[in-house]
């Protein structure tokens, strides 16, 4: 089963829920940290990394001996990533989306591809948890191809927990698509609610069953609960504000390590998810 943990608003506790759920589950579990811009799960899982891969995306290079300056490459490119200027062709690698259109269209076969580094994928283990994350190269704009690469490591048969980035645009979609369940982590504040509505909108577009964790559940108001009830989104767990949890988090400690009594609550969360997924499958 693939559970993607998302939120809309940042800083609501996605990583806390992802890592504690994984550690509580114990074995045959993977964490794929798809928040490749700012991955944080490793700070809590502290895996021993044993594989590092540099991930590149193809970008054009032009053989000027063959090029006749016809300009077809510039015409097909939707991203202004290749242009004929005077007597030369300039590819702008950082703007390139790697569609291969210029390579295909060039009548002289003067364009081949080289790689632009997107970042790295690191893999490791700790305490039975398989760990994979992507780290976007600082200065690189495009995260979805790196996220998709991280997701190729999902192992069928295992419980795969995806730590998604905040927001609702393409990197989030890349982290949720194809999941069996999306667990939305929110806080009961106006910002939390506003961004939760966007996240629920995204989940509905993808037609994935979802449920809610309300973090810092006693700080704010009851509008998130009322919204969840009205939208038929089940609240599967509430985590009240506890300074001990906040302080443990600040040091990189997991709740279930500092307060082992939480392990059962995270397992209950998992069973709650299983039930929702089973119900949806029956309906279908």
């Amino acid at each position: 089963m693939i559970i993607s943990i998302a939120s809309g608003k940042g800083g609501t506790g996605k990583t806390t829920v992802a890592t504690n759920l994984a550690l509580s589950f114990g074995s045959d579990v993977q964490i794929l940290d798809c928040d490749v811009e700012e991955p944080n799960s490793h700070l809590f899982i502290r895996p021993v990394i044993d594989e590092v891969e540099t991930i590149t995306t193809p970008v054009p290079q032009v053989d000027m001996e063959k090029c006749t300056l016809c300009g077809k490459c510039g015409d097909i490119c939707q991203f202004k990533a290749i242009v004929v200027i005077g007597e030369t062709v300039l590819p702008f690698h950082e703007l390139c989306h790697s569609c291969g259109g210029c390579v295909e269209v060039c009548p002289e076969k003067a364009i081949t591809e080289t790689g632009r580094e997107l970042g790295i994928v690191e893999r490791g283990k700790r305490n039975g948890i398989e760990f994979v994350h992507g780290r976007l190269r600082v200065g690189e704009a495009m995260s979805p191809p790196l996220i998709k690469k991280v997701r190729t490591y999902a192992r069928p048969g295992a419980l795969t927990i995806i730590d998604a980035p905040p927001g609702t645009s393409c990197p989030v979609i890349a982290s949720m698509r194809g999941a069996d369940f999306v667990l939305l982590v929110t806080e009961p504040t106006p910002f939390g609610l506003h961004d939760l509505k966007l996240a629920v909108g995204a989940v509905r577009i993808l037609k994935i069953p979802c449920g809610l964790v309300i973090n810092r559940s006693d700080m704010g108001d009851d509008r998130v609960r009322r919204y969840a009830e009205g939208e038929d989104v089940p609240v599967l767990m509430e985590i009240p504000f506890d300074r001990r949890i906040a302080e443990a988090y600040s040091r990189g400690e997991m709740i279930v390590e500092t307060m082992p009594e939480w392990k059962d609550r995270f397992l209950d969360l998992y069973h709650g998810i299983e039930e929702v997924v089973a119900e949806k499958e029956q309906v279908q």
Partner: protein
Amino acid sequence: MKEIVIISGKGGTGKTSIVAGFASLAENKALCDADVDAADLHLIMDPEIRECHDFESGHTAIIDQKKCTQCGICRDLCRWDAISDDYVVDPIECEGCGVCYYFCPEEAVDFPLNTCGEWYISDTRFGPMAHARLGIAEENSGKLVTLIRQEGKKLAEAEDLDLLLTDGPPGIGCPVIASLGGASAVLIVSEPTVSGRHDMERVAELAAFFRVPTMLCVNKFDLNPDQGEAIEAFAREKNVKVLGRVPFDPAFTRAMVQGKNIVEFDGGSEGCRAVKDIWEKLTRAIEN
């Protein structure tokens, strides 16, 4: 006219609450919400919309089934696997590269421009504001960030204002890159946690890449003073000016619930005093 962009790397460190506080303290300014993916500043600013515009950017392929002969060229060329076995384009996977449109021998592919959000010019009790809403699951957030910052600058210039206060997005990817170019200064709002520190280091590196003068404040400082001090020490090492510390203060959440900023909600609160102190230092820093 100067523009200060407030970013954080990590989400949820308190960027928007602090920007909302600054809105009460800054004079002759316009506001800009460049966190177009999950914009929240308007929830405090309560803008009255003066103008609303569609944001059009990028294209999506659509195959006309009547013209399509299922020759397979588009499926072979599409690198996003966005075209199904029965030749229907999945608009979420479609990158908008136009390769199928260009190469279809039957001219069966249409390639219309997308409307992927809206942007607004509004009035608020703190002054004018430029803000935007990217449609759910849409692309091109970087382009919308660039557009809304340009509109914010035009707005400030048209109304003869000295400052644009821009609430930036989290992360270090395309929308953040779009929010940094040409800014007068960047303020990073961090938090004293392992993740706050990790993410602050990456976003500070990005800001350095753009050669934008960068400043730092640490929110919820007392949650872990050692971690807070470590973040400040890292900042000094990287020539990031440390402006101050904001304590963990539940008044920020209570203010937000009432749709107010911290200055309006409780001017005597510890949080408010810290925000004022940081604002004064920030003003002095950008004047120099």
